Every structure is written in structure tokens, then in C-alpha cells.
């Protein structure tokens, strides 16, 4: 499974190069990877549907309990199959959709990275690796939404999606750590199987809130739903893949994964049911009232995500079945419809549904795919969407919490969704020809293949229900519920409440569809009023506030004067360290001066004298030279106390300082005193305080030993374990090599900083 996840990243590295090589056929080539992955995951279906769980693990940071470990159970398998199966057609589709695009290679690199990260999310067994993959999906989503980076909207909404999901991601990390603390380990498989009662831990409420914040932001639940419709600034293959079929379901996945452990908690049930139901209704309403085809689909995705969240919250057997079937149905038809939307956009030149009509003659193949997918969206038999809708009603009818309200919400949303299905699958193709900017034409094979296959998979699953039933969903339902559930899907249950509700929603939906055209203007007015108070307005307020605060703190703290930076840094150190020293330790100074030799004292005096000279001198060269004296004296001290490495380093650094000073000396302005009277006093106070602090700290540290010094370990272990006699070097390159690695990166960044300040001037506009 490690290979399955990492192969996506590996191919992503090659993608730009391959794109240059294969040009227009690249989509077909790259699609072989997800196709292979689909086959790989299908090969696990028999074992997993028999209740097996495949666990694999690779050490990553075993000392911290962080491993690259993977778990393939029913839920993971269902998601992994969706990701790789839909991914196959998305890659093919993107090849046609972005044919000849300048950055096609970049696009494929990012989307393959995304696919690999998404597989990582659903396969991870370790909380930390799940989190890493989770954040990677956010980053790749950001890059893909902002793919048309020359458009202001794409950049703005890419950032919005990133900030919202990252804010949630931070909360999620806190939540996952709490989960690990309460559950006694970082492995899902251990947490879900352990006897630790997660529900009675002292921070259960905080843990649930943090995890749900992460899941809700990722899965676009109210009040964080606004980023998802805005993410439609992305190219359509991205919207179809990330923002309807896979990434936005990561939050849902996490909730489903944790449901067996946390599902009994009242907070979990309440939050999931109420937020999910509200999001469902809001999404359905906004989908109905929107006119841009991608917005319509985006809001209907919000509706679907709300539904899934609500179903997890309901938590009964029926709800779990409904969850799995709705998840499957939605991914199939929504992926298909998004790709259809892309085709329509491409061939008519507009996204506005009100302009489209009568396209069935020009696009005979697209209309088939759109109709089948639309029927599934509307939930009509014999499509799989119908089965999912029946299961949804069945689940809501048996909901233990606020059943009546949830039922009204579910039926209402379904009715709205039927009207939505009409508006995207019927309206553009039938009726009088619309007035589109471009003359419509049929899409190429690469573009209609995906929607066609996904739509007909919906049909196939509806007709041959045992395929999704036993092979895919059984094990998934077991994973979400935590215990096996006995169920069988069927198209015909006889006349029962779900069927009646379905029929009722169909009639209401048909009426709503009839009103679709005439309701545009009033709904647009209502939405405009509402949006002033919506969470998105809050987001923009928050962003403005953030900018204001950072402007204010930049003006105050980072005013460009090195002097004030120094004062802030030094005084912070003095106050914090000084306070800690006095309050935690107190001053016990034992000064033993009898064993100081005369040459040590001489060096110390020299240092004091040179510092005094540096402060008082009126010549720059003099100051520099005296600082050199100071540096070499320090080097002498190092050598006297048998630290030759430090001594050599100090001498070399002094030498290089001279070289650098020679280079800048002539470029500096004349040497003079810039400080006014009170500044001199202030600065010297700061300097004296800092000197005092360090001196006191050193003196106090002499006779304090809180714990055994580590140096004896280094001395002992240096040769036997690290084959080196120079302990300083062994520490640098072996015992503490990680720190050194960090340091050389810091050094590089500093050098790049100098380089960019000196070399990369802001371009002066020529005609200014």
C-alpha cells in the first residue's frame, strides 16, 4: 500500500516531462496509474468484504509513535476505489479539457500529488500521517483552485479555501493529539479496538469539538460552507474531482472513521445531526437558486455533504446503510455531472444555465450521460441514486434525535434537488435553443467518456444491486457502525413510507422545476440580502481585521530601525529570563577567584578595555579593529579552555567578518552619532541590563545541576558508537545531525535573503 500511495507522488515528479513528450495523449497515459490502482484495490475486495482488515506499517518516527501505517478496511476501500476509479476518468478528461494549456504538465503534477495524498488520507492508520496527508490535500487544492493564477478571483478563492481548511486543520491536529492521548496510541486500529473509554476522558468535549472543526471546514459544513462554491474558480476537472467526489469528503471520512468510537456521545450526535441537516437544506436551497451550472453543482455538493454528516450523526443501522449508498451514489453522479458541466462550458462558452437550451441535437452523447446522471441525482428508479434516496428516507424515519425535523429537512432538500437535477440535466438539452456565445458542438472522446462511464456505473449499480451491496458497502457499513449490519438493498420494497415520501418529493420537485425560470429574479434578491449577514461576510471581515492588525503591528514593531528590533528582542529576553531566574531559582552566587591565572585575567581585561574603546571611539575602522581584538580574545579563551574547534571557528569567523566589512566599508554612510541624548541613555540601560542578566545567569548556573550532564555520555559514546574522536564534530554530524541539518538550511535561507536583498531589486516600471 505504501507503493500505491507513493506511486502518485513519483509519477507527479515525472508528469511535466512526460507531458512534454506525449503532448495531447498525456491524459490517457497518466490515467494508467489510477486505473492500475483501481485494479489493485479491486483485488482486495474479496478479502475485505469477508471482514478482513489489511494492516501494513513502515517505521517513520517510531520514537514518537509516528509511523507510515496503512489500514484497508471496508470504509477505506470504498473511498480508495472512488478516488482511483474517478481519478482515472478525471485524468483522461483533463487531457482534453486543458488541451494545449501552457501549464498542463504542472496541472498533472499537482493533481497526481493530490490523488496520492487523498489515498494517503483514507488509507492512513496513523493519526499523524493522516494529518500530514490531510494538509497535503489542502495545499494541492489551493494550487489547483488557483491554477489560473492570472485571474484575481482564482487567487482570492484559492486562498479562502486554504485559510478555511487550514484553520480547521490546526484544530484537527489538536483534536487528533487529544484523541491519541485519550485512546492510548496514534493508530486508528488501536484506538478503535482499545478498551479506553474515549467518552469519559476529561477532554472528550474539547477533542470532539476540535476534530469536528477540522472535519466541518474540510467538508464545507455550515458555517464554513462558503469556500466550496467559491472553489469553482478551479478548472472543471478539479471541481469534479476534488470539490465534489473526493477531497471534500475527507471530513466525512474522518467522521465516519471515528463514529464507532465517538458516536455515542450526545455532543457528537447533536452537532452532526443539526449542522448536517442545516447544511443539507441550505445547500439544496442555494443549489436551486443559483444559475451558474458549476455553482448549482457546488451547492448540491454542499447539500450532499450535509446529508452524509447528518446520516453519521443519526447513527442507526439504517443510517449507516444510507451513508454508504449515498456516498457511492453521490460520487458517481456528481463526478459525471461536473464533467458534463465542463463540456457545456467548453462547447457553449458560458456557465449560465439560463442561456442554455436545446443542445441535445448538437451533443447527442453528452445528453445521454447527463440524463442518466441527472436521473440518479433526482433519485429516480432504477438508478442507484434512487436506492440511496430510499435509504436516506428510511434512515431519517428511524432517527432517534429530532426525527420529525430531520424528516422535513430531508424531504424538502430532496424535492429541491429534483428541481436542481432538472435544471442541469434537462434544461440545457431540451426546449428551445438557447442563446450561447459559441456554437455548440459535441465533445471529444476524452471528455464524454468519463461522464458516460460514471453515469452508467450508477445505472449498473441500480440494476445489479448485489454488486455495491455485498462487495463494496457491506464492509464499509461495518467499519462505520463498528459492528456488522445485516442489510440488503433493493429497488422495490413494496409500498412503504420511503416510497411515498419519494413520490411526494418528486411531485414537489417537478413543481419547483416548473417555477425555475420565474423564480430566478426574486431568489437572487433574497440571496443578496442574506449574504450580507452570512458567514462569508464574516470571513471577509476577519480578513480585513487580520490585515489591519498586521499593519498595526508592522508599524509598531517592524518599523525598519534595527535599533528598535534589538530593543524589543533584548528586553523580551531580559524580562522573561530575568523573571524566570529570580522567581524559579533566586540568586546564589559563589565566586571563586583564587584559581584564575594572570593570563586569563589579562585576556579578560583586554576584552573589557576593547569593549570600552568600541563604545567611545569616533572612527569606524577603529571600532571594527577593536571588535576584532575582542573576537580573537574570545578565541584565545576557547583555546585556553581546550576547545580548539571553537577557537578555530571563532578565528575564521573573525577573519571573514573582516572580509565582509572590507566589502561594505566604503558603501556605508559617514560615521557619526545618530542617537539623541535620551536615546543614548535608553540604549545603554538596555545594554547594561542585558549584560547584567547574562552575567548573573552564568554565575548562578555554576553551582546548579538540575540533572546529570550529558557530556560524559558523549565522551564515552563518541568513539565506540560514532567512530570519531573529535567529540565536537561527532555531536555536530552524528549525535545531533538533525540540528545541524536544520542549521545549514537556516544558513542557506539567510544567504538567499542577503542575495535577494542585494541582487533582486524591485523592478522599476520603465514608463513611470
Amino acid at each position, binding site marked *: 500500500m505504501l507503493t500505491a500511495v507513493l506511486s502518485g507522488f513519483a509519477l507527479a515528479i515525472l508528469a511535466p516531462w512526460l507531458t512534454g513528450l506525449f503532448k495531447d495523449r498525456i491524459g490517457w497515459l497518466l490515467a494508467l496509474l489510477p486505473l492500475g490502482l483501481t485494479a489493485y484495490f479491486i483485488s482486495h475486495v474479496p478479502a475485505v468484504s469477508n471482514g478482513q482488515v489489511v494492516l501494513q506499517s513502515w517505521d517513520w518516527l517510531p520514537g514518537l509513535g509516528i509511523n507510515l501505517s496503512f489500514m484497508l478496511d471496508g470504509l477505506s476501500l470504498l473511498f480508495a476505489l472512488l478516488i482511483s476509479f474517478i481519478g482515472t476518468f478525471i485524468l483522461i478528461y483533463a487531457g482534453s479539457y486543458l488541451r494545449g494549456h501552457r501549464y498542463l504538465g504542472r496541472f498533472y503534477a499537482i493533481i497526481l500529488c493530490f490523488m496520492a495524498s487523498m489515498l494517503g488520507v483514507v488509507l492512513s492508520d496513523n493519526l499523524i500521517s493522516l494529518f500530514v496527508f490531510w494538509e497535503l490535500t489542502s495545499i494541492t487544492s489551493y494550487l489547483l483552485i488557483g491554477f489560473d493564477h492570472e485571474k484575481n478571483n482564482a487567487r482570492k478563492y484559492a486562498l479562502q479555501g486554504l485559510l478555511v481548511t487550514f484553520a480547521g486543520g490546526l484544530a484537527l491536529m489538536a483534536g487528533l493529539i487529544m484523541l491519541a492521548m485519550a485512546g492510548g496510541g496514534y493508530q486508528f486500529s488501536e484506538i478503535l479496538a482499545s478498551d479506553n473509554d474515549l467518552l469519559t476522558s476529561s477532554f472528550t468535549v474539547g477533542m470532539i469539538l476540535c476534530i469536528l472543526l477540522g472535519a466541518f471546514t474540510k467538508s464545507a459544513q455550515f458555517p464554513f460552507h462558503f469556500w466550496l462554491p467559491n472553489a469553482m474558480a478551479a478548472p472543471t476537472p478539479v471541481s469534479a474531482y476534488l470539490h465534489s467526489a473526493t477531497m471534500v469528503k475527507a471530513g466525512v471520512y474522518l467522521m465516519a472513521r471515528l463514529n464507532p468510537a465517538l458516536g455515542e456521545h450526545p455532543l457528537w450526535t447533536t452537532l452532526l445531526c443539526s449542522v448536517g441537516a442545516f447544511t443539507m437544506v441550505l445547500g439544496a436551497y442555494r443549489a436551486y437558486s443559483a444559475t451558474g451550472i458549476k455553482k448549482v453543482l457546488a451547492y448540491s455538493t454542499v447539500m450532499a455533504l450535509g446529508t452524509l454528516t447528518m446520516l453519521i450523526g443519526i447513527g442507526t443501522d439504517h443510517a449507516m446503510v444510507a451513508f454508504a449508498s449515498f456516498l457511492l451514489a453521490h460520487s458517481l453522479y456528481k463526478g459525471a455531472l461536473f464533467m458534463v458541466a465542463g463540456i457545456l462550458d467548453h462547447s457553449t462558452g458560458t456557465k449560465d444555465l439560463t442561456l442554455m437550451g436545446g443542445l441535445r441535437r448538437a451533443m447527442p452523447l453528452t445528453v445521454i450521460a447527463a440524463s442518466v446522471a441527472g436521473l440518479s441525482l433526482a433519485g429516480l428508479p432504477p438508478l442507484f441514486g434512487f436506492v440511496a434516496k430510499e435509504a436516506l428516507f428510511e434512515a431519517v424515519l428511524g432517527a432517534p434525535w429530532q426525527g420529525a425535523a430531520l424528516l422535513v429537512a430531508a424531504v424538502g432538500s430532496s424535492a429541491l434537488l429534483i428541481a436542481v437535477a432538472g435544471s442541469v440535466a434537462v434544461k440545457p438539452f431540451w426546449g428551445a435553443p438557447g442563446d450561447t456565445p459559441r456554437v455548440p458542438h459535441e465533445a471529444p472522446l476524452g471528455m464524454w467518456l468519463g461522464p458516460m462511464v460514471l453515469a452508467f456505473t450508477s445505472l449498473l449499480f441500480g440494476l445489479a444491486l448485489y454488486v455495491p451491496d455485498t462487495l463494496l458497502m457491506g464492509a464499509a457499513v461495518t467499519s462505520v457502525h463498528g459492528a456488522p449490519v445485516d442489510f440488503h438493498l433493493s429497488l422495490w420494497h413494496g409500498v412503504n413510507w420511503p416510497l411515498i415520501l419519494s413520490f411526494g418529493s418528486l411531485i414537489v420537485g417537478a413543481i419547483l422545476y416548473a417555477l425555475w425560470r420565474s423564480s430566478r429574479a426574486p431568489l437572487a434578491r433574497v440571496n443578496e440580502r442574506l449574504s450580507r449577514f452570512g458567514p462569508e461576510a464574516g470571513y471577509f471581515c476577519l480578513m480585513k481585521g487580520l490585515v489591519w492588525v498586521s499593519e498595526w503591528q508592522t508599524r509598531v514593531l517592524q518599523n525598519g530601525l534595527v535599533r528598535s528590533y534589538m530593543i524589543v528582542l533584548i528586553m523580551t529576553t531580559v524580562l522573561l529570563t530575568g523573571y524566570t531566574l529570580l522567581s524559579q531559582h533566586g540568586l546564589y552566587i559563589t565566586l571563586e577567584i583564587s584559581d584564575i591565572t594572570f593570563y586569563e585575567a589579562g585576556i579578560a581585561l583586554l576584552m573589557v578595555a576593547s569593549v570600552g574603546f568600541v563604545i567611545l571611539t569616533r572612527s569606524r575602522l577603529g571600532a571594527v579593529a577593536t571588535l576584532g581584538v575582542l573576537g580573537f580574545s574570545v578565541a584565545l579563551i576557547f583555546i585556553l579552555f581546550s576547545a580548539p574547534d571553537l577557537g578555530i571557528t571563532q578565528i*575564521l569567523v573573525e577573519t571573514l567578518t573582516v572580509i565582509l566589512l572590507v566589502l561594505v566599508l566604503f558603501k556605508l554612510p559617514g560615521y557619526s552619532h545618530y542617537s539623541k541624548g535620551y536615546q543614548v541613555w535608553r540604549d545603554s540601560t538596555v545594554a547594561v541590563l542585558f549584560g547584567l542578566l547574562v552575567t548573573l545567569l552564568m554565575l548562578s548556573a555554576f553551582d546548579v545541576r538540575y540533572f546529570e550532564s550529558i557530556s560524559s555520555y558523549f565522551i564515552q559514546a563518541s568513539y565506540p558508537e560514532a567512530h570519531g574522536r573529535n567529540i565536537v564534530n*561527532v555531536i*555536530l554530524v552524528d549525535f545531533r545531525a538533525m540540528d545541524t541539518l536544520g542549521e*545549514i538550511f537556516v544558513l542557506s535561507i539567510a544567504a538567499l535573503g542577503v542575495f535577494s536583498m542585494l541582487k533582486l531589486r524591485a523592478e522599476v516600471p520603465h514608463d513611470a
Partner: protein
Amino acid sequence: MPEKRSSLVQVNTVILHTAALLLLPLQILFSVFLLLRGHDEPGGGFIAGLVATGAVALYLFAHGVESTRRILRFEPQEFLGLGLLFGLASALIGPLVGEPFFTAQWYTLYLGGNTEVKLSTVLLFDVGVYFTVLGALLMVVISLTEAED
């Protein structure tokens, strides 16, 4: 002060000129010596990198930026990248042979007689530090030399 600056970058004295030419290889050799002995005696990648930078800087003062760039053959940034790459690569050899990240690997080569050469990922790492220090400092020194006001 344009005259002063040009005189700063390239000092036209025969002694410095010749000395720099002769000292450069010696100093580089010395830096390699420090680098290789660093694990057992005073020295190491950081110190060696500083010495090498000093050598190049001396040459730079004597012969100017153009000529220095010519003998370096690579951009300082490339040394920087190479160094970081070595550092990372040495860390990744551990996982390749199935041990945790950054676990040192030692290989001893026996040459004829009693000569043996200890090769290790630790040495590779130190070489990485060497190149990073060299690259970073040269970047600063060369940028400063070329900087206009």
C-alpha cells in the same frame, strides 16, 4: 565614490596577485584536509568551509569577480544546493537500508598494507555542511562585491 570602489574590487599589486594564485590551491587543500580529519581531530565541515571561503575571498580581492566566477565554474547557489542535497542524502541512506532516518552508515575500504579508509554517511553529511557553508558565504561575498549602491 566610484573610483574607490573599483580599486577595492581589484587591487593591482603584483605581490597579492601572485600570492593569491599560489595560496588558493594550498588553502583549498588545507580545507579538504580539515574536512577529512574533522571526525577525529579539530576540523570538520564548518571550519573547512570557512577556510575555503577565505581562500576564494583572497583570490576575489586579488583578481576580481569575473575571474573568480570563472575559476569557480559554478554559481555559489549551486554549491549551496549541492551541500543541502548531500546533507539530505546522507540522512536518507539510513531508511534505504532499513534503519531509522539519519542512522549513520559506515563502510571501511581496505587499501594495501595497513591503510584503511573509513567512508560514512557522516562524512557525506560533513561534505554537505562544507559545501553549504562555502556556498552561503560565497553568495554573500560575491553579491556584496557586485552590489551597486
